[in-house]
């Protein structure tokens, strides 16, 4: 089976504190996995390592069969990896919702009309068409999350790294999001505290225990 992401004996530290020691993780093609764990155990930090936003201390990280040594090795794969911040305020670049969602597409040189079409489609999918002209900072917490998510999904990345996608969402939106993510034929890594969501969504669940990843389901 081909794989999207492979960690071998990786250690991760944040500000000198070792959070993970010699962990291995394999994310297969179109596989969906979830990571759960206590607050502050380092889930976000791990996800940032996977997204190439932070250096690991040791070990090997393989992405789409290419070994990543430094942050700059990640550059060619940037457009294939989508990342959702835990705090959606961190995700926005443009003040208007539709501009922000379209940004990554336009930055890659897509035609405006094409990008507008894609944005309209994703807004439709997430049932947030009514937000398209609003200012991002005036949205509610849940709306922000959806807009941020739309900005990630619109690029159709091969690997999705989502940091708590369902917090701040209402029940209806949660089930809808689960549906959307399940329908996606992509590799997905999710960090979440939402038990129902995790159970329904993922093929395997890992938990963080004493600086290592343990598979629990």
């Amino acid at each position, binding site marked *: 089976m081909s794989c999207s992401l492979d960690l071998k004996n990786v250690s991760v530290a944040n500000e000198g504190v070792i959070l993970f020691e010699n962990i291995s993780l394999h994310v297969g093609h179109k596989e969906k996995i979830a990571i759960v764990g206590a607050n502050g155990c380092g889930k976000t930090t791990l996800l940032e390592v996977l*997204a190439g936003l932070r250096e690991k201390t040791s070990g090997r990280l393989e992405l789409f069969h290419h070994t990543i040594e430094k942050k700059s090795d990640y550059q060619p794969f*940037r457009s294939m990896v989508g990342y959702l911040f835990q705090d959606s305020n961190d995700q926005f670049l*443009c003040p208007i919702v539709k*501009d922000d969602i*379209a*940004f990554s597409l336009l*930055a890659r040189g897509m035609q*405006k009309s094409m*990008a507008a079409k894609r944005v309209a489609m994703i807004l439709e999918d997430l049932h947030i068409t009514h937000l398209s002209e609003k200012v991002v900072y005036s949205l509610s917490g849940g709306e922000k999350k959806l807009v941020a998510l739309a900005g990630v999904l619109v690029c159709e990345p091969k690997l999705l790294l989502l940091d708590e996608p369902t917090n701040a969402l209402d029940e209806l939106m949660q089930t809808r999001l689960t549906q959307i993510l399940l329908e996606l034929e992509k590799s997905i890594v999710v960090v979440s505290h939402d038990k129902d969501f995790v159970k329904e969504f993922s093929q395997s669940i890992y938990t963080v225990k004493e600086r290592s990843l343990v598979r629990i389901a």
Partner: protein
Amino acid sequence: MLVIVCIYSFFISLQTTIFVSFLPLCLFSLYYAKYNLAQVVKRVLLFNIFIIFVVISTLIAGNLELALLVFIRSNLIFITLTAFFCKTDMFQIALAMQILRLPRVFVSVFYLSAKAIFLLKMELKRFIKTLKVRGFQAKTSLFSYQIYSNFFGLLIIKSFQNANSIQKMLLIKGFNDRLFSLSETKQISMQEWLTLLLLCTSFLSYGALL
């Protein structure tokens, strides 16, 4: 729009005497912003607090004429600027700068610093809310000052964190020194033609007076 007002302010700032012919554009700008007048007035008043210091210091130096000139001149520029741009946000101004082919680095730095300042402003608002919720009352006690200094510490840490998260966000979004918007660049509107016309007439009448 940006160009016109820039020329206008640049021109006024070069003047040593004020002519009535510069007034129309300023008045027109106020008309343009008629729905946001309160906001404009507020900003102009705030701005004048700073100007007053300059004016007073020149007055003390005994130069009444220069003081008046500084006062009128800066107000003219500032009123026109705020009135025209009170509705436009930083993103649009940055886009306009990009269309004018200003250096990319310059535009990005401008927009990103505007964003950072905006984030700090949000932080300030949040902090004020926190103070209210936690039942803080401003007194001239040591405790109050401690809280204030805590806030400045927080602000500094926050600005580091903001810079960090903005950097991460730019990586994720595939930012490459250019800004984009879905909305089309507008045709030159009636109002802009009028502004241009007013600008020309004020120049012409100025030239005629010379």
